[in-house]
């Protein structure tokens, strides 16, 4: 198609009164409400269904998703989103079920949640999960609220420190702060890992929680995890597992076995919930036995005959969202579990790790890989040398990849690696795709040396060129405004 040079805003098209006939014609608002309560203007555009369809179809052509190409966004596990999951979640018996439907008339939904919860608990070695949190960060918050309540119950309210490695995702410290915890940032050692000694050094009576992900965001397995957990526990603290990288461990080890007391999962990562342009996610929150009573409500129970939502849990931190769960995503996640079973999930992790290592060794050929050892589901490369020698940054490489039809890797994270490119291929990509990506990346690195300006100018084939972020932040324009008449 001819690339549309630009698409007007929906507010810039349409005509008042160009209404679609979805409903019958009702009476005026004033028939039912005192005039003083009725708003007198509502400056929204009226558009024909055709024009709306065209608008959002065209916008979709300006949007890159996994369905269009390789999406190696590190830490985000952008794997294939099976269409059966959407088809199932769209069934009216799920989509039209009201959250206040009495339990006995929602047994199917409750069973979905129960089977998912039980499977996750077994798969990750937790006593139970709550499906309440809406995403990973939300579950982190829930976990820290649990920790806070737990220590309060134990009369250990002095525990106000949360240990967060420097490789941790920004949500970890942010969640800690939302619970009033002080964040202790922990430097990774030269192996890119948390060192037991460091942990032992900083752990103490003020330690509430140590938040870790394993493998960490460098893609490296924290092999001292058992000792770390022991140290934290010995100091009286709790271990929290950030499950964003769970795609690397299934069938090989479990957070519960590593010594974690609490954890979350991002089902939108590990279990193929479509990321939807930024959400909605789904963040099941798991707890070991001693913390199960604190999980957010409601929890799904099964008495051998019927499933039920249990709200009355005195120790619980309470609910974290309007209604029970991002249920449609629980449906998708369970469908994915059924597509795999135990063996399949193990295979998922195996091939995710294989793909990452294969990419790693290939990329190491022409880009610095600061941690040249077996990685798990992802690895980091660095453009530090390129920057020094040719002025080409990770950002430039990222933009050049866009021109080749690839989504860019995560860049500038984790923070400890300068000019970082964090690459996570996932298991659903084929060797051919990886080989093609390597070839493209190699060519870009070549061009960085011979024609760096080309990379500064990239991307050039995309609907727009490099966007001015500074201007956006300096002169924020966050909305369209109606023209004064």
């Amino acid at each position, binding site marked *: 198609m001819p690339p549309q040079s630009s698409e007007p805003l929906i507010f810039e098209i349409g005509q008042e009164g160009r209404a679609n006939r979805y409903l019958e014609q009702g009476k005026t608002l004033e028939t039912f409400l005192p005039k003083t309560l009725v*708003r007198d203007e509502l400056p929204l555009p009226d558009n024909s269904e055709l024009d709306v369809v065209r608008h959002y179809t065209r916008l979709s052509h300006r949007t890159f998703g996994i369905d269009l190409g390789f999406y190696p966004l590190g830490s985000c596990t952008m794997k294939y989103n099976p269409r059966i999951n959407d088809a199932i979640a769209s069934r009216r*018996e799920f989509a039209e079920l009201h959250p206040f439907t009495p339990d006995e008339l*929602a047994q199917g939904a409750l069973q979905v949640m129960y089977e998912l919860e039980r499977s996750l608990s077994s798969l990750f070695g937790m006593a139970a999960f709550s499906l309440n949190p809406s995403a990973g960060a939300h579950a982190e918050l829930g976990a820290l609220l649990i920790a806070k309540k737990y220590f309060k119950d134990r009369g250990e309210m002095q525990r106000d420190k949360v240990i967060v490695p420097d490789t941790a995702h920004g949500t970890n410290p*942010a969640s800690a702060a939302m619970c009033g915890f002080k964040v202790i940032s922990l430097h990774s050692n030269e192996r890119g890992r948390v060192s037991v000694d460091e942990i032992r050094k900083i752990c103490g009576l003020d330690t509430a929680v140590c938040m870790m992900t394993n493998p960490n965001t460098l893609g490296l397995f924290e092999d001292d995890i058992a000792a770390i957990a022991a140290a934290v526990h010995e100091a009286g603290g709790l271990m929290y597992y950030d499950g964003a990288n769970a795609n690397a461990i299934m069938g090989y080890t479990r957070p519960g*076995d590593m010594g974690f007391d609490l954890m979350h999962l991002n089902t939108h990562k590990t279990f193929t919930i479509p990321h939807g342009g930024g*959400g909605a996610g789904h963040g099941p929150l798991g707890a070991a036995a001693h913390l199960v009573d604190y999980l957010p409500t409601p929890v799904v129970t099964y008495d051998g005959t019927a499933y039920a939502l249990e709200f009355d849990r005195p120790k619980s931190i309470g609910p974290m969202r309007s209604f029970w769960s991002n249920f449609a995503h629980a449906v998708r996640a369970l469908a994915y579990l059924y597509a795999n079973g135990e063996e399949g999930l193990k295979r998922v992790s195996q091939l995710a790790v294989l*793909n990452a290592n294969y990419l790693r060794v290939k990329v190491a050929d022409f880009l610095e890989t600061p941690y040249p050892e077996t990685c798990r589901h992802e690895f980091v490369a660095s453009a530090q040398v390129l920057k020094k020698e040719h002025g080409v940054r990770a950002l430039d490489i990222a933009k050049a990849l866009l021109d080749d039809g690839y989504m860019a890797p995560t860049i500038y994270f984790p923070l400890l690696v300068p000019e970082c490119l964090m690459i996570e291929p996932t298991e659903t990509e084929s060797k051919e795709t990886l080989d093609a990506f390597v070839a493209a990346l190699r060519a870009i690195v070549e061009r960085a040396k011979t024609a760096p300006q080309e990379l500064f100018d990239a991307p050039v084939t995309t609907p727009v060129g490099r966007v001015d972020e500074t201007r*956006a932040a300096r002169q924020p324009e966050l909305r369209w405004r109606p023209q004064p008449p």
Partner: protein
Amino acid sequence: MYAPHTQADINEMLAAVGVDSLDELLRVPDAIALKSKLEVVPALPEYLIGRRFEQFAEKNGGVNYRSFLGAGAYRHYAPPAIAALAMRGEYLTAYTPYQAEVSQGYLQAIYEWQTYICLLTGMELANASVYDGATALAEAAIMALGATGRKKLLVSRAIHPNYRAVLRTYCEGLDVTLDEIPFDAELTTNYSALESALASNEYAAVAIASPNFFGNVESPTRDALEAIKHSGTVPIAVVAEALSLAALEPPAKWGAQIVAGEAQSFGVAQAYGGPYAGFIASTAEHMRRIPGRLVGKSVDNAGRTAYVLTLQAREQHIRRERATSNICTNQAHCALIATIYLALMGKTGLRNAAALNLGRSRELASAVANVAGLTLKSSAPFFNEFVVDTGRPAGEVLAALRERRILGGVDLGRFYPELKSCILMTATELTTSGDINALATALEEIMRAPAIV
């Protein structure tokens, strides 16, 4: 499994990596290695997955009942064009639009969403979504806490109980006190109580919902508004039924500085509670405290209009523990659905839908009020739901309705001990006269029988 690897692929790749087996790549210290068999649901071929969920689906009999449920999740008409657009793979399989150059479509759609929320609420700016209505309220409260430096919050008890419960959960973390203002006999906020509470000048925010949980339109008194202003309290408006914004004066009109709301009514499936789309809108002064993503308009290197994530210095991935919120993944796709819904309905369609809700719910109210033994609990103007007093345990009446394949509404005793005999009933544009007649007939029967308790 969805992985494309043939055995030949695996062998070749292992060789390239220089290891002998997959187990070698994934090995963990023995102490933590998984040894036991798991209890995960069994693997099924795709066609049997469909059948399995068909079985689950059949056990959700509630969807086939006549329903008068609302209370924060609403059954509205969603034109099929929404799904045809929103379920396109580009939208479904994108993530947060970090790379603006290949995300212009989604960025523009979110910019449109932000604008729609501003136009509907009358506020200056809106974010790219938060988890849902309840967390929107919590995040709005955090904004106010930050803005005022105070440690107390005041909320009307006529706000959705679930929203208040979530706020309570958050308050535990924030070490903040949460006080509630009672509602009066008309089931609207008691504004003189509000006034007196504010006298202390201690509250960071005061939150009022309109329509409130009982469906009633709130009209803060002049004195109450004066007290809010005077006390330096941030007024937060809560909107759980966003369609009401098409009919009622926008919260900006009475001076709300932050609006926390739920956009599920805009074409988002009820889906047993989620995912929905929370929104936060505010006046300009709160711009740098607003949580989550914001899309801004800018230009590209050739001066062409371009959209981009902006003001990221508020966010956790930049600011870590000093961020305005921990939110990362939001509810973008639900916001997209709502945006498309709004585009399809337009002003004309939206106002008409609101009028139909008003009409249908009044039809329902008078049918119910005509049943001997039932009374409407309030005479305040309402949007599409209202409270019926049955004079007996509401749960009993609802159970009897259930036997007649009717979901009569929400038992208010669940949330308010003093309203044990009351039901919150909802009608939308999809409620038919047939539904209403069936309910009325059933209620006649039920109310004729003596109460069990």
